[in-house]
């Protein structure tokens, strides 16, 4: 390699002129120019962590697609913004569970689809719901529809949702989330039954105006919308993967709303730039240290219990989550049926007990591997766990894996310990579904098998008494913890910031409900 020193064609005077101009520009408050321009332009600018994947609810990629779907489509019911989980009527003027397997509904008479596809009818509801469970469609979101059998159309705007058996998550997942979006039957059939990234027929308070991949999506107010008028004329959604970048964009006044990194919470607690506000919401995600029950090195239950008691969760949270997250007691977050007030193993480590359990186990010179995803948070957690387990004489070797290799760990029989994090919807059914015996070696990486747990998973999804249901899920988590395969760490947190222009409407877990966003001034 040869480095050539080339004289730049910039004179001293020109350099000084440029530097002075640059200095003057940087002396302006961050985002000043943008904020002046954006102050009252009726445009809400928000960040999404990923770009649009599909406008078809059957193939929705998750929350990032749903943010848009919820604006351009309607559901029978929508999540209610606030701190408690609940729902409110949307396209339905009435909805009622008449028995455990039948739900009657009636549609509003003022909702229509764009592009001349007419008013929304019960046929559209039937088509939208039944295509999710259609084998030919092969929807990635089919499990969310649970035990749906079919939808009976009893009138132009009336119908009955029929279930094969009672399915409690219908009210917390199926209807108010991704699969609940109602599309136009005529429009979808005209497209051959599938919708891509271009809207075919929309019905919500906003219409998709444009989409520049990896750049932004623009939603404009639907002129034919007869419901409550949304506060913003236009919503611009910017896909920004990196939270640091999103924070810079927010502080520069480029966006009005974003989730921020947990590392930034301490700073934002002191002051949010530009008169903004920090909101800290609990998250539904769950993070845990898992141990593979099938691995020869982890057959001894006393060893697993020793590990459970040696891991100090508060220290992990301080190191990896900057004390912005709380310890968890299981896989079901606070606010959901089945959340446990306390786990069987306290979050704080008990090294004496851990050492005693290890001695009882008779295991010596224990060396275990800990697989993690190559992200800073997991690396920090793993190193803290490594140091903690070293205190009781367990040596941990950290395996950092790129995402492809990590997420293929389900069938890795050599897996010993793993730091894992799963996403969650607001119903406990979704959490327990990954830890049943038939998921062993698929998503159940600990290969935890328990007949009672499997039975609870099935029965609790059919239980409509919330009190009984909660107790069943609490028992399910007790069983997980008793196995020694799990050390529950946290549900993380969802810190978001918003500018003073915006009054955000958030789900209890901090996800935005953009159609309900209001104006600050």
């Amino acid at each position: 390699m040869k480095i050539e020193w080339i004289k730049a064609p910039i004179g001293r005077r020109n350099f000084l002129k440029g530097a002075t101009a640059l200095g003057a520009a940087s002396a302006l408050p961050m985002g000043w120019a943008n904020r002046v321009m954006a102050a009252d332009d009726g445009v809400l600018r928000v960040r999404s962590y990923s770009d649009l994947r599909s406008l078809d609810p059957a193939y929705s990629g998750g929350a990032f697609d749903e943010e848009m779907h919820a604006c351009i489509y309607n559901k029978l019911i929508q999540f209610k913004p606030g701190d408690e989980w609940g729902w409110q009527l949307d396209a339905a003027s009435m909805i009622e569970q008449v028995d455990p397997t039948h739900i009657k509904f009636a549609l509003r008479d003022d909702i229509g689809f764009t592009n001349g596809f007419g008013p929304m009818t019960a046929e559209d509801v039937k088509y939208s719901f039944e295509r999710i469970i259609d084998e030919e469609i092969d929807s990635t979101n089919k499990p969310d529809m649970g035990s749906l059998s079919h939808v009976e159309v009893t009138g132009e705007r009336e119908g009955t949702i029929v279930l094969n058996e009672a399915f409690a998550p219908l009210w917390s997942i199926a209807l108010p989330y991704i699969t609940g979006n109602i599309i136009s039957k005529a429009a979808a059939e005209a497209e051959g039954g599938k919708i891509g990234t271009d809207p075919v027929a929309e019905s919500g308070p906003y219409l998709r105006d444009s989409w520049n991949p990896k750049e932004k999506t623009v939603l404009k107010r639907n002129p034919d919308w007869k419901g409550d008028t949304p506060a913003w004329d236009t919503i611009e959604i910017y896909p920004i993967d990196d939270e640091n970048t999103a924070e810079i964009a927010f502080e520069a006044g480029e966006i009005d709303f974003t989730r921020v990194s947990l590392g930034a919470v301490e700073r934002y607690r002191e002051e949010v730039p530009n008169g903004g506000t920090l909101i800290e919401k609990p998250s539904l995600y769950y993070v845990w240290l898992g141990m593979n029950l099938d691995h020869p090195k982890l057959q001894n239950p006393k060893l697993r219990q020793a590990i459970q008691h040696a891991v100090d969760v508060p220290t992990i949270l301080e190191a990896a989550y900057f004390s912005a997250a709380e310890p968890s007691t299981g896989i079901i977050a606070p606010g959901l049926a089945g959340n446990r007030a306390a786990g069987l193993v306290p979050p704080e480590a008990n090294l004496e007990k851990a050492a005693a359990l290890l001695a009882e186990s008779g295991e010596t010179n224990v060396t275990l591997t800990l697989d993690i995803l190559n992200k800073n948070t997991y690396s920090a957690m793993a190193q803290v766990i490594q140091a903690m387990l070293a205190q009781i004489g367990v040596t941990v070797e950290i395996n950092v894996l790129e995402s492809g290799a990590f997420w293929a760990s389900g069938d890795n029989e050599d897996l010993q310990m793993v730091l894992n994090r799963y996403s969650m919807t607001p119903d406990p059914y979704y959490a327990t579904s990954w830890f049943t015996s038939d998921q062993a070696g698929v998503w159940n990486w600990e290969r935890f098998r328990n007949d009672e747990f499997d039975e609870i998973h099935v029965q609790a999804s059919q239980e409509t008494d919330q009190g009984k249901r909660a107790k069943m899920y609490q028992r399910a988590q007790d069983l997980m913890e008793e196995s020694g395969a799990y050390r529950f760490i946290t549900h993380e947190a969802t810190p978001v910031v918003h500018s003073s222009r915006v009054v955000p409407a958030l789900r209890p877990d901090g996800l935005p409900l953009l159609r309900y966003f209001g104006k600050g001034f």
Partner: protein
Amino acid sequence: MEKSRSELGQIIVGVARDPLGLMGLIIVGVIVFCAIFAYWIVPYDPIAMDIKSRMQGPSAAHLLGTDQLGRDTFSRVIAGGQVALKVALPAVFGAMAIGLTLGMIAGYGPKWLDNLLMLFFDTIRSFPTVMFALAVVALIGPSLQTVVFVVMATSIPTYGRVARTQTLTLRNSEFILAERSMGASMARILGVHMLPNIIGVLAVLAAMDIPTVIALEAGLSFLGLGVKPPTPSWGALLKDGYSLIRQTPWLVVGGGLPIILATLGFTFLGESLRDVVDPKLRKQR
């Protein structure tokens, strides 16, 4: 022996007379010194955590502040230099030794062997280094040895090709023909007569390759696929620093600065060495 010592002295004096060479020599000297004596220099154990003191800025107690786990960044930078050289030196000199041997055999041996070895070199060179590294890491897992193996494997063809070209140039020289006419074996011709004429060029190449290897190790560690935590490495510092750049920019400074210095130092040294060892390639002054 006396002669070779004086030749080495001449090379060092030649490098020291070139201002850039002197700068390179000093930088490389400091890096090597710090790497060798890392555990006597570091003020703190580079892997000892003190979470209560995390993400501190520079102070008298912590010259470059602390990281997310409260570890002293300066100590991790110094210890990271040791890792960088532990990867770079065996990888580069290993690749040089193997490449030199295969290259000389290709240049001096029969045509079919030359063709076979060239095919081997071209096959390896056809893999983009980073993609090859990612594939190997995915297959056998990240570790110091994996990085050394990847770098060595991908660097062999470069040294092999240079050694082959030099050997082809020298094989019909009069002194080689004279040796052959006197019945000298192939090993003697290659080891005693060819090697001293080739090694200088390869040494220059090696010096210039070291920063590339350091950067590759840092790149893999930045992707989380280099050395395993908690081993300190400059790339891992950069990775940690990147995600916390708005909270504590000193980690990025701590990880980035030594990579820049090492690159400049070894490049200056390599260029200067080239001028001294091979005056024919001397740049225009």
